[in-house]
């Protein structure tokens, strides 16, 4: 390697992976336009809500929290996909995960802002957001949330950006025909990356270190999210299981989301070779484990309540199982557990279509699960539950804003994939010229790992 030259590891799929970056088609523009349109409608609807007040939603007393908070929990849950796959599996040494790390991390990165947005949308006085910093009380679970989610967002950006760095440099050097501003963007973002062995060594070391940190954060964040509910003494919420259950649900829906995203990328960007079907099979095994763990949590929680038979708890229990929310509850059981488990075990192998179908069901079901955890408790207040029985019908405002949040997530994702390679190039290299750059000998914490092959 000569001075002033940048080294890029040779990736046999380089052309394939960079192809989507080069071409923004008219179909993209239509999609982006449509998504911006939906987002715009959401903004208008939100401005109306901001001016008139939260009365335009279906929330009332005692249903003080509704779809917005459900969205918050769901988006933060979705965000767990990336960190799980790129950090936890990184530490576990599951090398198969390499091609899908970025696709998964991007879900994390782009769904977190919409989780935060959901909270803002739900606030009665978003103009007083700064009060959280000015007068913040660390005794409040909401402040734990605020801290955990900001930390998660910040560290995800860093983690994502670091692992993107060598590929930005690659874009800078390879994509010479792109518009000047894009070229400049790559130049600035690449931070003068040269790809020297020292740089790769440092990068790997940093990413390993951060993976440990991220794994801790990911567990903390969703547990803390659940504590907003769990720390109150309301029946149905006040259970020690709520933290682990939320965490499991988060990783479950997150991993299912990765399947959906991968399938879309694979098809629309023709990445079949870079994203082999074996990835889906590996995810399938994980998903089977998560589906069963979900059942375990579900049984543990509901059997404890049922057997204990405490009057306040049972009001909420029956509200879920046979009451106003029964159809959602049983639909959820089918969407999250029964059908997906059948598909994952018997149909999912080597079949992307079945995997996607089941993953969509899991995600819809997990949204319903969040709803089922939050709402029934509110409809049966501890005191006088026979007198102040809550009824809640979300209004068009809430659905429009919800839709626009999902549109926003899709938009960020779609735009990102047209400007940056969505399959990490440097992490999936086959030929590493080991005599020069012995890069795959990662410094891991603990024991040194065996060289592959």
């Amino acid at each position: 390697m000569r001075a002033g030259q940048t080294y890029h590891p040779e990736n046999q799929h380089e052309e394939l992976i960079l192809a989507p970056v080069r071409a923004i088609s008219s179909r993209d523009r239509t999609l982006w336009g449509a998504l911006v349109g939906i987002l715009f409608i959401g903004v208008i609807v939100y401005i109306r809500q901001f001016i008139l007040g939260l009365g335009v939603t279906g929330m009332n007393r005692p249903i003080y929290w509704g779809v917005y908070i459900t969205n918050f929990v769901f988006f933060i849950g979705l965000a767990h996909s990336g960190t799980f796959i790129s950090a936890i599996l990184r530490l576990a040494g599951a090398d198969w995960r390499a091609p899908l790390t970025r696709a998964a991390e991007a879900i994390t990165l782009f769904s977190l802002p919409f989780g935060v947005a959901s909270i803002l949308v739900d606030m009665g006085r978003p103009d007083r957001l700064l009060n959280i910093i000015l007068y913040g009380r660390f005794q409040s679970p909401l402040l734990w949330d605020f801290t955990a989610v900001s930390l998660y967002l910040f560290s995800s950006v860093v983690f994502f950006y670091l692992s993107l760095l060598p590929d930005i440099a690659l874009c800078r050097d390879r994509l010479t025909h792109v518009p000047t501003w894009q070229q400049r963007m790559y130049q600035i973002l690449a931070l003068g990356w040269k790809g020297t062995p020292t740089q790769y060594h440092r990068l790997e070391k940093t990413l390993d270190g951060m993976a440990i940190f991220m794994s801790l954060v990911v567990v903390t964040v969703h547990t803390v999210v659940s504590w907003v509910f769990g720390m109150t003494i309301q029946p149905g919420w006040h259970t020690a299981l709520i933290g682990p259950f939320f965490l499991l649900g988060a990783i479950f829906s997150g991993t299912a989301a990765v399947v959906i995203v991968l399938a879309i990328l694979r098809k629309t960007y023709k990445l079949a070779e870079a994203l082999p079907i074996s990835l889906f099979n590996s995810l399938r095994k994980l998903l089977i484990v998560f589906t069963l763990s979900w059942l375990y949590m579900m049984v543990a929680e509901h059997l404890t309540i049922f057997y204990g038979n405490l009057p306040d708890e049972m009001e909420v229990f029956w509200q879920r199982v046979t009451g106003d929310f029964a159809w959602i509850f049983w639909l959820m059981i089918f969407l999250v557990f029964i059908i997906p488990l059948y598909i994952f075990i018997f149909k999912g192998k080597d079949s992307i279509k079945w995997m996607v179908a089941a993953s969509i069901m899991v995600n819809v079901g997990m949204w319903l699960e969040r709803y089922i955890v939050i709402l029934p408790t509110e409809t049966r207040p501890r005191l006088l539950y026979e007198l102040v029985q809550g009824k809640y019908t979300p209004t068009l405002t809430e659905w429009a804003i919800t839709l626009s949040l999902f549109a926003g997530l899709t938009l960020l994702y779609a735009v990102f994939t047209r400007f940056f390679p969505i399959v990490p190039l440097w992490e999936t290299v086959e030929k590493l010229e080991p005599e020069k750059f012995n890069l795959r000998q990662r410094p891991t914490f603990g024991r040194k790992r065996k060289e592959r092959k």
Partner: protein
Amino acid sequence: MTKWSMVIDLDKCVACQGCSIACRFENNTPIVVPSEAALGRSILWNEVFPLRSEGEGAIASDQAKFLTRPCMHCEDPPCVKVCPVGATYKDEEGIVRQNYTRCIGCRLCTVACPYGVRYFNWYEPDWADSIERPLNPDRLEGPRDLEGPSVRPQGVVEKCTFCIHRLHKARERAKAEGRDFRSDEYVPACVQTCTGKARFFGDLDDPESTVSQLAQSRRAFRLLEDAGTHPKVIYLHEG
């Protein structure tokens, strides 16, 4: 130290809802249209509930029991615990207060309160023209505070304050007259108006006060005692 407390004798309560109305006018509680009320968005700091009767021989409707419910002003308030910005707080005399200028409207306190005494302003408060004029002019505000009957902005939580402005006024009066303030100089509007004289108010730390003595009664109980909130509103059983 003063510890403000209320005793409600259910034996004397005639369920006239006078307390609820007095509270409404004293504290400038916004009025909602019937369709909003049907959604459960009416604001009644002092709500009156028909009480369910348990077990055999459920009492016929003409004998129905009622429960009037102000804020419990818990000694260990779950709402104060969870507020992220300290907009709701327990002052040194045990009154759980709400600062409308600091509240961010997250509604964590409303879901945390097991008694449902906290209300949210879904819209900008609105009064019919005829009611607009006689709003209670009492104000409790500072540069960063807006409390008590002061008209609330949209999007904040409000609740019973034991008529905190009355306490302030009584204190000011005593000060102006150059004497010490006595704890029997102030009662909330609901106590003053109660038709059946079922409500008592005073200092629970003073063993001589009516509330302290009534609190010793065998009929005394508190709502959701097992919730560990230690309410300072004490009820007296019927019969």
